[in-house]
């Protein structure tokens, strides 16, 4: 790889990192519910992206590609975490407390975060992508590697789970 091509890739990576490091970090954080782990995973996501950037086609959806890397990394993390869930130091739900300052947490936020932890990660990802990140069904399907119909189903089930956990009458 010549220097010019490498410079182009470096520039592209810098753009992607600047634009998506915060959304990717929050997406991962909502998935793994652990700020330090989220940062480690975010760093790993961008390093993977940097190594694979040269093999990516020019017309590829870079944003969807980055989120797919982040989703896989988070799911891998959650999968490993399930294996040690029985350890006594863990909470009942297996998550740790958020690092956001308590002064910023309102009762509603705490209730929502608590409810969100009740939603399985399989449904939580499409819900976050749809409601927080604003992705279309097609993009979510592309990120998750599933069809649009499957995305609709997962979104419906995610909402129902969250409604039950958060309180359906709210």
């Amino acid at each position, binding site marked *: 790889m010549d*220097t010019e091509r*490498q*410079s182009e890739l*470096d520039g592209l*990576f810098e753009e992607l*990192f600047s634009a998506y*490091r*915060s959304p990717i*970090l*929050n997406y991962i*954080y*909502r998935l793994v519910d652990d*700020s330090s782990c*989220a*940062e480690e995973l*975010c*760093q790993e996501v*961008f*390093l993977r992206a*940097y190594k694979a950037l040269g093999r990516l086609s020019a017309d590829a959806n870079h944003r969807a590609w980055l989120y797919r890397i982040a989703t896989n990394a988070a799911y891998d993390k959650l999968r490993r975490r399930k294996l040690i869930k029985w350890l006594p130091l863990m909470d009942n739900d297996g998550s740790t407390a958020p*690092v*956001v300052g308590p002064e*910023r*947490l309102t009762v*509603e*936020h705490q209730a*929502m*975060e608590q409810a*969100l932890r009740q939603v399985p990660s399989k449904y939580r990802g499409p*819900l*976050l992508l*749809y*409601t*927080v990140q604003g992705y*279309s*069904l097609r993009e979510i399907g592309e990120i998750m590697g599933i069809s649009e119909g499957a995305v*609709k*189903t997962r*979104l*419906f089930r*995610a*909402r129902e789970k*969250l*409604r039950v956990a*958060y309180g*359906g009458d*709210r």
Partner: protein
Amino acid sequence: MRCESVRRQLAVYEALMPEERRRVDEHLRQCEGCRVLLATYRAQDRALSSLPMMTPSAEMIAAVHRRTTRRPTRRPVQRRVARVVTLAVLAFLLVLGGTLPTVAAGTLPGDALYPVKRAVEQVRLTLTIDGEERERLTEVFRAKRIEEVQALAQTEREADVAFEGELEAVEDGVWIVSGVAVVPQPQVVAEGFPQIGQVVVVEARVSEGQVSASRVTHTVSVETQPTTATAAPPTPTRARAVSPSDTPEPTVEPTPEPTDTVLPPTPKVDVTAEVYPDPRAATAPFKPTATPGDEPKPTQTPTLSLESEEGVETRKTAEVEATAWGTPRETARATRWHKPTRTPTRSSGEATGDPRREATARARLTVIAIRTRESIATAPPPTELPTRRPTARPPTATAVVRPSPLPTRTRVPRATPTRRPTKSPPTATPNTNSAAATPTSAVGSTEPTAAPTAETTPPPPSDISISAPTVTVNAVSAR
């Protein structure tokens, strides 16, 4: 439209297509429960969107930058440096491997690159498997060595050399080895007895156009050397007939010798001596004339006569020089010539190739040669020239000798087989071991069993004439 299907679409109400949304809206206007559900979903969306956001830490950003931006900036530099270094090494090796042997090919001994030239030749020889090609290369390199010596001599450069060549001739103490004139140094060490036409290895120093040999190697056995009277450069007769010495060897053992009388110098001296032919010069092997039990008897009675003549160059000087140079062949011949007549038993033992005697003879010859040189160089001019005059002298040849600064005391025994030799004092009897070095003793030692009556007369201050056997003189007077 049933509520069940509408509720699934309410989960993605914002993403519905216009037609689907119109049908869902119609249902919502009629179904209170579905309207409440849609409001709940929208509340979830607001709550999720209002959740506090994490901000990437500076450490995480720096770590990503460090692990992504460092490698690209360093890699090309390292590659460039490695490429330049590799090219430089390759170029250096190419130049060294291709140019150095070419440059070294024209060097001479003493040059800085001369070892490279020899190393390249050695590598070529080592890598050559074919025997014929290897021999051809060896000959080529041998010729190169001789060319180098000649070039050094022509350019009057100074260097130590070693070369191998054919001994072509020995003239005036100068050896011609493959066209190179080699002058033996006083301390020359000669190994073996090279003959004309044989290959010798010469270690020499080239200085001021002269090749001075410090070592000559030739290890061919004496008995295997083909010798003829014409091929042999110096004969033993030459060596023993002259080279007078005023100082007999102090280590002399008294041997049965004729009664010698030293006479005061006389203006004109005639010396008659019995000269034995070189047994190796004959085609037939040498046979002692006496049995071991009997007293040795000389087989011939050649005569040497010395007489003074003015302004005549004689071979005496040449003979002295030849003995003084200590050429191994001359001294070897002299010793071999003496042994059979002295003790037939020893003679026959040496003729059969006794290795220990042969080695002893070689070592003695080297010592003799060196001593002769030193004695000649350091001997003071004689005040008188004692000579011996044997009674019996059948002269067959005559040579005129110009007086040399060396002592001219010469003793020529006379062959008297019936007479038993008598012992004489060490100061008067010659040394058998130093026969070749001190010709006076050499003459006496050749006739240990004879009882010659040597007559010594004071030599003339000017010239001396020598009478010698014809066969010996012809061989010597080749110059």
